[in-house]
């Protein structure tokens, strides 16, 4: 931690950065911290378990425009940055990507493309609690599972915190904001809540890194991230793509290989 702080102070003093995005202590735990001077670096805290996923700010022009940015990344944030680079959302050496590994080693990635070899070694796995819920849901019949999710989504107030927390939900116009045509009703209702979540999850299929920021952000405590996690598992089973690792040869759902199984077509 001290190494991290020392590095940030050095960067501020040398003028290499004007903004460091990290975490500081909030009322109910860690919260995002936009540090703008060497003297404030002292407040910074870090752990790889922290939420939210700070990579979400890198695509927000109002945050990063005209700034020289360093971002202090959890492993999940690193995964997100690798994906964002693959989708042309961040540039080659636009940001200083700083990471403190679980064994307290300070790492600085010069480019998002350098992240892969590091995260390749670290599997993206759900927490023990999440795994238990997934197993419980897997054991249900599809009717029971539908009823369980319907009950969960009945609490949704359509605040879109899940969308705001997700680094991969960077579209300037989300499908729910599209009103010509209005595919999904804007108000909270059982049908439109379900439609929104199904759309959200499908739009993240093959892109989600499994950080869980969406679930953590939900003010109603709906475990929406479990839907994403389940899809990550399905992708790993069916396409052999390791969860949370940006695939080098195009994303799962938009590429095709001649030797792909076609047993469902004939």
């Amino acid at each position: 931690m001290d190494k991290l702080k020392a590095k940030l102070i050095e960067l501020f003093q040398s003028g290499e950065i004007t903004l460091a995005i990290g975490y500081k202590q909030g009322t109910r735990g860690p919260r995002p911290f936009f540090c703008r001077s060497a003297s404030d670096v002292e407040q910074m805290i870090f752990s790889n378990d922290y939420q939210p996923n700070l990579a979400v700010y890198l695509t927000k022009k109002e945050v990063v425009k005209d700034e020289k940015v360093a971002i202090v990344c959890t492993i999940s944030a690193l995964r997100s940055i690798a994906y964002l680079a693959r989708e042309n959302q961040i540039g080659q050496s636009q940001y200083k990507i700083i990471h403190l590994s679980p064994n307290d080693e300070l790492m600085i990635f010069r480019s998002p493309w350098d992240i892969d070899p590091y995260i390749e070694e670290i599997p993206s796995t759900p927490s023990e609690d999440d795994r238990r819920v997934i197993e419980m849901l897997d054991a249900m019949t599809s009717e029971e599972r539908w009823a369980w999710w319907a009950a969960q989504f009945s609490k949704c107030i359509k605040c879109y915190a899940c969308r705001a927390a997700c680094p991969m939900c960077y579209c300037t116009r989300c499908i729910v904001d599209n009103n010509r045509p209005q595919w999904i009703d804007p108000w909270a209702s059982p049908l439109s809540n379900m439609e929104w979540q199904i759309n959200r999850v499908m739009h993240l299929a093959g892109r989600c890194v499994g950080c869980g920021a969406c679930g953590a952000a939900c003010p109603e405590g709906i475990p929406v991230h479990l839907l994403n996690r389940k899809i990550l598992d399905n992708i790993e089973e069916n396409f052999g793509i390791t969860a949370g690792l940006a695939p080098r040869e195009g994303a799962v759902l938009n590429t095709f290989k001649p030797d792909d199984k076609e047993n469902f077509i004939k």
Partner: protein
Amino acid sequence: MSKIGVFVCHCGENIGGTVDCEKVAQEAAKIPGVEVSTDYKYMCSDPGQTIIKNAIKEKGLDGVVVAACSPRMHESTFRAACAEACLNPYMCEIANIREHCSWVHEKGEATTQKALDLVRMQVEKVKKDLPLSTIKVPVTKKALVIGGGIAGIQAALDIANAGHKVILVEKEPSIGGHMAQLSETFPTLDCSQCILTPRMVEVAQHPNITLYTYAEVEGLEGFIGNFTARIRLKARSVDLEKCTGCGMCTTKCPTKKVPSEFNALMGLRTAIYVPSPQSVPNKPTIDKEHCVYYKTGKCKLCEKVCPTGAITFDAPDEIITEEVGAVVVCTGFDVAPTSEFSEYGYGRYKDVITGLQFERLASASGPTMGEIRRPSDGTVPKKIVFIACAGSRDAAKGRPYCSKICCMYTAKHAMLYQHKVHDGESYVFYMDIRAGGKNYDEFVRRAIEEDGVNYIRGRVARVYERDGKLIVKGVDTLLGGEQVEIEADMVVLATAGVANKGAEDLAQKLHISYDKYNFFAEAHPKLKPVETNTAGIFLAGACQSPKDIPDTVAAASGAAVKVAALFSKDQLLREPVVAVVNRMPPPVFSTCVGCSLCVDICPYSAITMENIKDRAGNVIKTVASINPGLCQGCGTCVAFCRSKSIDLQGFSNEEMYSSVMAALHE
């Protein structure tokens, strides 16, 4: 407020017999925005079209819905009628109340209701329709013909004679295909080579034809009028420019016992070889699999004896690209794998052969110089049995179709045998004699009546060997199912025609469809027999289904005419049903966020990323951009775009949404 006209067609009894068309028209009149709604017996007829045109002019319609047959049939008819009445043709929509309704449902209230729902959906769609105009694309007036059998030769010559450039690609060292292997041809018994080889030479000499033998198409990109083909010129280890075809190399080659493909594995050839004396080009190729040099690194005898230094060992394959406007696929057929006929002893008994092998025996250029001799001991068979339908019309062997050519060539084989072996006896086991075609049945009657071929209606159960004879056990169903046993000297199987090896692969490379037997699929079995579902790619010959020579030549000329018609214009008009990425005023410019995932997903490589710049040239935003010439309107990107920034013209999100809502809400 829209002014929409609804025109309900009875299609005679086709729709009118099941759907209450009058009621559909009356109910449709009540849909908001419908100005006029009427029904007529045949909307596609001249008076029917006049009703539409007059309504557009008199009522000032801004949209038309024709409730009739599938848009595949008459969409263009009605769009043209609208255009004549000065309405943008893309403001005309078809509600398919025939294929989607009257043909698939019983007469009744519910069927009429469904027809009305289909009309309602299209009325809501047409309200959101935007006027579109056709896209013009240039045409490369050069054709690619794949396969140099009689189909490819005919197609290439016809296109070339129409004044267009042709590239003919043949995977074997010589053109000619299966026809070059045949002895005589039915129903006239003229020599196959005598009629084919002049055509082969014409191809080689034609100024408009570029011939690539020993070459294969590796890939095809692009679209009608603008294809790019990648062709692999396999290294034949002989420089065709230097080679004079003197034949020194083939006489000196130490590897002399390679089964000859041209002789259907009945004769032998050398490792450096010319398939047949009449090959085009008549220049050798080194078969790397059997060549001593390629196997052991030593020999090069051919190089030593070659007077012009034409042997080029270890030259790599060359890949060339050619821009072409149309493709004719003529890759032909193959005979069924003979391992399937264990009950007939094929492979076990040397004297059980296939029809193609018999052709080589009967051919003057064949291994026996045209004398019918047994492969086992070289004696002349005195008794010969032909088994028709070996593998065809046999659901148990997974091939329920008729191979079409076997009845005729079996009659021909039996006839040729009788002509050559005057004291011989021939028998033909058959299921049915299918001799439809000009002079075909007469030909079979001639075999039976004049040449004394014994036709036995029934199937052969098995063939086995006893004392040097082949015992053929079968049944004569015309004699009340009596068992027959024939002691034959030789048995000829009329093996089924099957799709060529690699047909499935090629179809995938060309993006054309194929059936479950891997024969290429035509766009319409009756009305578009030489077109594929991919515009600009045509079919001819036995790659589509087993065909005889007259049918193959007819199809090849048909395909050639299609190509010539395509090349008759400098520009091609295309439907404007293409995807577009939205653009809007600053500061948004486009809702596209430039994730570029659509670039990967587009099967036609039509999408690229484009920079939107300010006047000083600074990049403001990078967004997707779709080439309307390449886009085929499949809509994959539309479905994939998360922010719905891509729309398919003519099937936009708004149009489809209105249509679906109309179906759900009523």
